[in-house]
């Protein structure tokens, strides 16, 4: 048996990362749906033969840990019936998928006839069948009202496309663009497979195996060392979910009990509220991903993202809770349970690691407009990315990040470019700016929120909202203040004002309607009276803190 060479281990680590990066660039540049190529709602990954994560490039942290569980499931499902040239699709949330819209491509990689690795790309598709275009159906109570289910299926078998299977899938999806985007994902998997084959040709399988294990081991030690700095004990926290989409006034609580024991950490969600009747439900994979990404923001950001990193982490989420719905519940909203899940974790750990947590982040409130561009006669779909991005929470020594957006993306989702927005929709942007005083006050302030206003340019516009943050603002910590609430408000041309619920579907919005949205800031950290006066002077001059707020909250006379 070869022993690991520390130098070669570094070479492998660097090469794995460059492979998943290369796959990622390929997907970003070739897909057509804006949620893939602009919002980058996809992840690329590399797995060993057993489905252990070697490396990944996640553009959205919420997808970060959603591929490995499926990879293992697929391996078991096909039970050896995996061949060179196979390509497998999957989205099913009841076989370890995370969200119906997130469809994954898996490609096994063979070396001298032996299965040695997998390449995979999971991306959020523009449509996935179901009752409502785009997949967000606030009225859904069962999975079939949301999406077509794709349990593991070979669309390419030994290099030959199965036209029948392909057509069966895409006959159930509204937009042709999805076929092209899935082809782009397959292309990226091929690129990754090519590179891993080159690596194996050069170093041989045994060297690869030995160094892969050594790499897992090194990363596991890194994570264990981080956990060891948290005092042993059990810490509890809560996060709130408001409105299930069906019953006005409903509230649900996510409860986490975090137990640290030397070099291991356990997240136990057993006391979390039961699942809802609607689509406000998580899947195990999406909820566990949320847990891991929140944890990762509390440790060394340079840690490699491979199997070793998750080995010291245990996550318990009983089936039937809002974070792990049972078959056949609707679950499309599940990824957006990340913010309250993160809130619960932060609240639990803030007293023990006060220097490593942030205050609360602005929660997502998103809108989606669909209609026909009267000038072009074309249908458009627009996800309002720029409107939904509020501020992050402050931490000791660092202000929150302005206009970053929800923690599940952590700055990975970008605004539409304003001029491209006006080309691709009939809307006209009126305002997209920081909101003064939207940052939770503190010695370190929260990130700023933004106001977004535009005039809707299509008749009979269909309008969907999904999200939260309009009942409870991002919270402050250690004397820092809360931020402001999210809100979306429509003013029709006749003066009628409509405030949609946070999960809503409104038909027939007329042309000329004025759209107004506030995305709140992040929570502040520490006593605002202790904030650096020089910074305050600049912020008052720049108009992001008003003179009045400076006086009343910060005790600073401009």
């Amino acid at each position, binding site marked *: 048996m070869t022993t690991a060479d*520390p*130098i070669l281990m*570094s*070479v492998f*680590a*660097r090469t794995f990362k*460059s492979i998943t990066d*290369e796959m990622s*660039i390929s997907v*970003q*540049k*070739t*897909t*057509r*749906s804006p949620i893939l*190529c602009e919002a980058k709602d996809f992840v690329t990954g590399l797995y060993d033969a057993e489905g252990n994560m070697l490396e990944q490039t*996640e553009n959205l942290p919420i997808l970060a840990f959603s591929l490995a569980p499926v990879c293992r499931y697929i391996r078991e499902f096909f039970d050896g019936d995996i061949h060179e040239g196979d390509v497998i699709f999957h989205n099913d949330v009841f076989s370890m998928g995370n969200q119906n819209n997130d469809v994954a491509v898996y490609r096994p990689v063979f070396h001298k006839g032996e299965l040695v690795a997998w390449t995979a790309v999971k991306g959020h598709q523009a449509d996935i069948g179901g009752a409502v275009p785009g997949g967000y159906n606030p009225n859904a109570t069962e999975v079939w009202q949301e999406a077509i289910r794709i349990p593991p299926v070979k669309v390419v078998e030994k290099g030959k496309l199965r036209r029948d299977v392909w057509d069966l899938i895409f006959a159930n999806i509204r937009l042709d*663009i999805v076929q*092209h985007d899935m082809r*782009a994902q397959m*292309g990226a998997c*091929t*690129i990754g497979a090519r590179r891993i084959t080159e690596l194996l040709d050069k170093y041989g399988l045994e060297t690869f195996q030995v160094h892969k294990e050594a790499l897992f081991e*090194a*990363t596991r*030690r*890194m994570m264990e060392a981080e956990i060891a700095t948290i005092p042993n004990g059990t810490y509890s926290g809560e996060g709130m979910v408001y409105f299930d989409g069906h019953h006005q006034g409903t509230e649900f609580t996510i409860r986490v009990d975090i137990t640290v024991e030397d070099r291991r950490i356990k997240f136990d969600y057993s006391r979390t509220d039961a699942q809802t009747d609607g689509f406000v439900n998580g899947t195990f994979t999406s909820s566990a991903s949320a847990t891991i*990404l929140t944890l*990762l923001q509390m440790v060394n*950001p*340079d840690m*490699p993202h491979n199997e070793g990193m998750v080995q010291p982490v245990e996550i318990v989420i009983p089936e039937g809770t809002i974070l792990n719905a049972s078959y056949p519940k609707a679950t499309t909203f599940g990824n957006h349970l990340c913010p309250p899940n993160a809130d619960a974790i932060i609240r639990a750990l803030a007293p023990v690691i006060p220097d490593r947590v*942030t205050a609360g982040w602005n929660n997502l409130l998103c809108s989606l407009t669909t209609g026909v561009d009267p000038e072009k006669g074309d249908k458009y779909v627009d996800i309002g990315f*720029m409107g939904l*991005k509020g501020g992050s929470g402050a*931490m000791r020594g660092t*202000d929150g*990040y*302005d206009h*970053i957006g929800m923690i599940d*993306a*952590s*700055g*990975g*989702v970008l*605004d539409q*470019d304003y*001029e*491209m927005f*006006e*080309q691709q929709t009939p809307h*006209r*942007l009126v*305002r*997209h*700016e*920081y909101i003064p005083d939207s940052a939770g006050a503190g010695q370190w302030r929260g990130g700023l929120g933004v106001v977004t206003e535009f005039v809707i340019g299509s008749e009979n516009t269909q309008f969907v909202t999904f999200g939260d943050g309009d009942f409870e603002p991002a919270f402050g910590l250690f004397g820092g203040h809360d931020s402001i609430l999210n809100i979306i408000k429509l003013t029709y041309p006749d003066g009628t004002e409509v405030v949609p619920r946070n999960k809503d579907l409104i038909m027939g919005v007329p042309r000329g309607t004025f759209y107004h949205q506030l995305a709140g800031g992040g929570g502040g950290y520490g006593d605002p009276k202790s904030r650096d006066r020089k910074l305050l002077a*600049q912020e008052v001059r*720049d*108009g992001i803190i008003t003179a009045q707020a400076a006086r009343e909250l910060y005790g600073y006379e401009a």
Partner: protein
Amino acid sequence: MSYRIGIDVGGTFTDFFVTHPGREPVVAKVLSTPSDPSIAVIQGLTEIAAGLEPSLTLDDFLGQVETIVHGTTVTTNATLTRNGAKSGLITTQGVRDALEMRRGIREEQYNNRYTNVKPLVPRYLRAGVAGRLDRNGAEVEPLSLDDVRAAIELFKREGVKAVSICFMNAFANPDHERAAAELVRAEMPGAYLTVSTDLLPSIRFYERVSTTALNSYVGPILDHYLNQLMGRLNEAGFGGVLLIMQSNGGVMSPDVARQKAALTLLSGPAGGPGAGLEYARAHDQTKCIVVDMGGTSFEAALVVDSPIMVNDGEIDRHRIALPMLGIHTIGAGGGSIGWIDEGGLLRMGPQSAGADPGPACYGKGGELPATTDANVVLGYLNPGYFAGGKMTLDVDLARKAIETHVAKPLGLSIEEAAAGMYRIACTNMAQGVREVSVKRGFDAREFPLVVAGGAGPIHSCLICDELEVPLQIVPRESSILCAVGMLMGDLKHDFVRTFVSPLAGVDWTALGAMVDAMVAEGDALLAEEGVAEADRSHAVKFDCRYLKQYHEVSFVVPREALEARDVDAISAAFHREHNRLYGYSLEDEDVPVEIINVRTQAVGRTQRPEFRREPFAGTDPAAAKKGERAVYIPERREFATVPVYDGHALRHGNLVTGPAMIEEVTTAVFVGANHDCVTDATGSFVMFRKDRADLAAHILKEGTR
């Protein structure tokens, strides 16, 4: 009037390359003078004049200089150190924060201590004014001149030196911007002004406002520097033509540079790729990958007929959307520091020891082990012949640094640790080469690697082994390649206009008129710069995409296809490029193609220096052999005694069998165990894999002619 000089001002050294018909080119290096870089320029020119046979006074020498091409990093440094001009921005009401928001990106998603970059214009100097154009350029609301006046008053009060103007949808109609500009010119005649549609009349608001603000930020700095430089040169008797290097690999007159200062922002390494191509051409190759390893960074660029261009550059996290060479820079150089991460993995860089204190072996107080330290331990650098003997390297200090920070923590010997550092540095650089080749759809194996930078050729054999690249060319002037490249640069001016339309059914009359106008503009600029008509040419590119894609693919539109209005031929060119870049096209699916931008490039050919051509001197290198020493052979994982050759004494046809070392004053070459090296007629060292001797056969064959 027959000298031509390329001058490359870098952070540490200012490099000179001087040509004169019928004479050996002169290579010189002096220490840079960052507070006023023109001092080093004059100093270097004085030294060169004195060193000529017979020696000349600076005045006499400059009197005979026909052209100086000058590359400067003053704008780059001003941006990186945040020492640009105090700037104001006049923009559309409601979107004044776009510049600071940068579309809401946080580059490090798991790092909650990662903060946004400070905006180039502070918020209180970003004035939103009323007035609005729709997406087609039609006026929705007239421009409020009162608002513009109020902004001007604010700027005057605050002592603003540079003003930017950028309005929503101005790419479709520049009228509002022009009206505002007129007012600024009248009220603030001394201020530097950038109007977005003059600089970059293309769609995408954030990219335009960022590029415009960058131009204003560095404009006054460049203006001031050019005044200093031209003053000193003229004073010293220079009466020739001064040209300025741009980020697109071309050159421009100082007047154009003053207007479009942002064109110099990433011009530092822009001379390299064009120069590399000339050395590859000496071997009938029309493509190559050019790499340049300096003290802190490693640059890689790809050339196919001409250097590959990109339109999505960035400096210090600010977008700059002007066309520039696709040069990929990573933090890997001679000064890159080796360290062990928390998981016990050896990493190299991006932290660098810089020039001061520098690697441990410099003996200037540096205690951390750098790539150069590893190279000393492994025998690749001769401690007594560094910079031709001007500086002595301390082997013991190098060993100590490596032992403390790498060998002990990893449980390795000092030699093993040094070999590991060398190995990781090469892996990092190989990844840098992949960025510009594999990731852009090119197979690196098909390209010769042109290697520049003093330490580049020590590492290039291992880089090539990793990438399976069989052929390398190390130019004799490799340590000052960018300065050479400055004399290879043509006058180049890029133009872009947004023209959104489906390709099928495009309004050819309107499109043709736009292209003609852009070509005419470029032609007039070249005429102004004194380029003869026969030396001017114009290329047309479209940025197209499949309907509803978000990212465009830029491709050359054949002139015949454009004139014949041949949609099929243009579409085919687009499908081909898309397929090459991304492994597929949607040609068979009949997905409509749309145009977003039209680009033209006006090129004024400049006179190129001629390479020397040495006569064939036989294959035996024995006359150049100056000794032997032990160096580390990576393939064998052990030291071996290899011959050392004096590079200056190697002649055309001399064949050096690897492993071996070749030393020059400014460069060391390690010929790996898998490679051999032959000197070509221009004096370049051509290294080839032992199993690919066919690649160098033409050099050896010259001897039989």
